[in-house]
């Protein structure tokens, strides 16, 4: 990058002469180094999956979760800096609780995403802070049915039927595009999600990883929960088998 | 003559929320030469209603200290909780249990800090001092305290204390020729007194009854405890003090 040494990349509150904010772009780089996270909006629900790279064999299985719960009906998967993800989740919880306090009903996901987007954006306009090194996938089932959104480090957000962030996002997106995503059942989506995560992990085969998955929808009564053990094992076994066939 | 109007115009009647109530029950403690006995009944009541037949009023604080709390039970629960918390902090800071005399002073400080919105509770603390003697400390709700050999408190204090004065301090008794009263009673006699005190209080006071819980704290190597029915050892400390728990039924009417 030509930005190095110019001084325009030292602060989020300074544009470069060609109109870029390098600190925000660097934040996006932080996400690219992180394990892939995907989300599928399917018939009757949303499925989230994360390729959690395990940097040490000494870690307890299940440690450092990257899928978190924002409200009963809202789940969140992050890619990027783990600690930033936790901070974002806490903010999400506060926003969801505040919506409930004011309106006495579970919040539509769009509201939460909107507020978190504004929150992320605020960290791109001050010299005293750094932007979130985070791409956030939010999934929910609200009054309008299943919802899926992604918030980028810049604060920009879009709704998706299938979303992928992190290192393997390109391949994951290609795979997601092949699916008839609106036709999948939640159970099928769990299998596909597991397969995609295992597939994109092929590029970083030497690294250990844990597949972390959760869902919200008809299968869970509209509540965000981890995938049941048996289904998770079944999906992982199928995913492994599909990789071997692929090879 | 009773004039309704004049009474009615005496200004606004105060109808303030009363943050206190009394939950009945009685506690007592007796110190021996090398032991201490702390006891309380387990009935909790409000007015003429029995709320429950089992609500403990006697709590083991450390391996050598037991606290009995009587009065307004919500205050009592909170107070015991806070004392235990302070004792835990003390352990973390000093790697040992707080001595009895210090617990007593701590309780005074905690009670007096609420001088103008008191914990409505009467406390009796029993245990073994550092010098190995059995001790009893009694407190009023705002922290006034003293070390004694025996004390009763609560609903039936006025029934039990005179009995104890007579049987422990030998008040109003005269020793026979060439006889003298012992300064300390042996444990079996004390336990008999405790059980008798509570069965009698149960007979004569409606707020006392249901169950009796007795804690005995023994000095190291003390042989005071005899084989007694239903005695259960609770803890033994590194320093050798032992705590025993005895439960007896009381009448439930």
């Amino acid at each position, binding site marked *: 990058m030509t930005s190095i040494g110019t001084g325009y990349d030292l602060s989020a509150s300074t544009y470069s002469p060609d109109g870029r904010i390098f600190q925000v772009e660097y934040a996006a780089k932080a996400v690219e180094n992180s394990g892939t996270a995907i989300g599928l909006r399917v018939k009757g629900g949303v499925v989230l999956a994360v390729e959690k790279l395990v940097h040490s064999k000494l870690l307890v299985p299940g440690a450092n979760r990257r899928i978190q719960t*924002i409200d009963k009906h809202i789940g969140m998967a992050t890619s990027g800096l783990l600690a930033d993800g936790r901070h974002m989740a806490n903010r999400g*919880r506060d926003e969801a609780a505040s919506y409930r306090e004011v309106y006495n009903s579970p919040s539509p996901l769009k509201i939460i995403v909107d507020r978190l987007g504004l929150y992320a954006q605020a960290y791109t306009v001050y010299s005293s802070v750094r932007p979130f090194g985070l791409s956030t996938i939010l999934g929910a089932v609200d009054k309008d049915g299943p919802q899926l959104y992604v918030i980028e480090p810049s604060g920009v957000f879009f709704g998706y039927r299938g979303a992928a962030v992190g290192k393997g996002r390109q391949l994951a997106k290609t795979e997601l595009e092949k699916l008839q995503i609106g036709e999948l059942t939640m159970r099928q989506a769990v299998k596909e999600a597991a397969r995609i995560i295992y597939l994109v992990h092929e590029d970083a085969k030497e690294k250990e990883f844990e597949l972390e998955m959760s869902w919200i929808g008809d299968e869970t009564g509209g509540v965000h929960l981890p995938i049941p053990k048996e289904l998770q094992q079944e999906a992982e076994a199928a995913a492994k088998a599909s990789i071997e066939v692929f090879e | 003559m009773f004039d*309704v109007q004049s009474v*009615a*115009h005496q200004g*606004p009647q105060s*109808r303030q*929320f009363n943050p206190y109530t009394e939950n009945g029950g009685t506690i007592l403690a007796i110190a021996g030469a090398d032991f201490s006995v702390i006891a309380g009944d387990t009935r909790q009541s409000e007015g003429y209603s029995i709320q*429950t037949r089992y609500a403990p009023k006697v709590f083991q604080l450390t391996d050598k200290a037991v606290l009995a709390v009587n009065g307004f*039970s919500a205050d009592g629960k909170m107070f015991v909780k806070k004392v235990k918390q302070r004792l835990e902090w003390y352990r973390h800071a000093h790697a040992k249990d707080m001595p009895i005399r210090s617990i007593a002073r701590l309780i005074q400080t905690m009670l007096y800090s609420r001088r103008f919105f008191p914990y409505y509770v009467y406390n009796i603390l029993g245990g073994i001092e550092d010098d190995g003697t059995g001790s009893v400390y009694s407190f009023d709700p705002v922290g006034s305290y003293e070390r004694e050999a025996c004390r009763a408190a609560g609903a039936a204090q006025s029934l039990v204390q005179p009995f104890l004065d007579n049987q422990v301090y030998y008040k109003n008794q005269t020793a026979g020729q060439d006889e003298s009263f012992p300064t300390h009673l042996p444990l079996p006699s004390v336990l008999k007194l405790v059980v008798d005190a509570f069965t009698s209080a149960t007979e004569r006071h409606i707020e006392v009854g249901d169950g009796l819980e007795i804690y005995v704290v023994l000095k190291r190597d003390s042989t005071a405890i005899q084989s007694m029915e239903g005695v259960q050892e609770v803890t033994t400390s590194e320093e050798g003090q032992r705590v025993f728990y005895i439960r007896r039924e009381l009448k439930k009417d």
Partner: protein
Amino acid sequence: MDHFPTNWGRPRNDLHDAYGTYPIHQHPQHAPKDAFADGVKRTQQPIVTGTSVLGVVYKDGVMLAADNLASYGSLARFKDVQRLHPVGNHTVLGVSGDMSDYQYIQKLLEELVIEEFTEQDGSILGPAELHEYLSQVMYARRSKINPLWNSLIVGGVKDGQRFLAYVDLLGTTYKAPTIATGYGAYIAQPLLRKAVEPYTDVLTEEQAQSILEECMRVLYYRDARSLDKFQIATITEEGIRISETRHLASSWSFAEGIRGYGAQTQ
């Protein structure tokens, strides 16, 4: 007209309550009042209230009962109110006393449950934890001389343990095999003690239900702030069931023959 609902339906000029027939907070007050003078001083009094709640421990769990009435003084104001509130899958809260404070408590619990759920740490609040939480809230509020004007019964089953406990506006707490609030403490509690306490490990669900129904009937006959519509909550290892509203059969024909009291016959 006296616009003070807690005075409605009470004898006039009853300044001296020699027999302690009024709950302390409802002592009649008929003196002319300055609308503002004591407005600041007066801490609170319950406005819309629910009457007794009953709770029993039986063989397979815990059962609570409460009628569906919320009274405005002596006025039967709301006749379809549920006073049994499920919290999670192991606990039911039965509430008597002020209904707006009850709704506030519901809000607190909803917040608490979501906070705990989002932790996703595998631990779930059971009846014991919720009772402790409510005790702390109630005691803290009484200590600010700003109580939540309720008597609460917390019932539940978790990890094979049956749990039944009480907490009120003073922060007073206790556990017992049978509990009743309000007038239930005087009228139903003795009946429950006799019918339930020796048999908590053998009473079937059907037996517990019929005992509670009978107590609710007695309360309906004697408690003027009660209703003949009630619900029963059953908490077992399997989860929570809160019944549909049930109707209490009662017969008032005996009243036809009553002409005054004592020697008065006409």
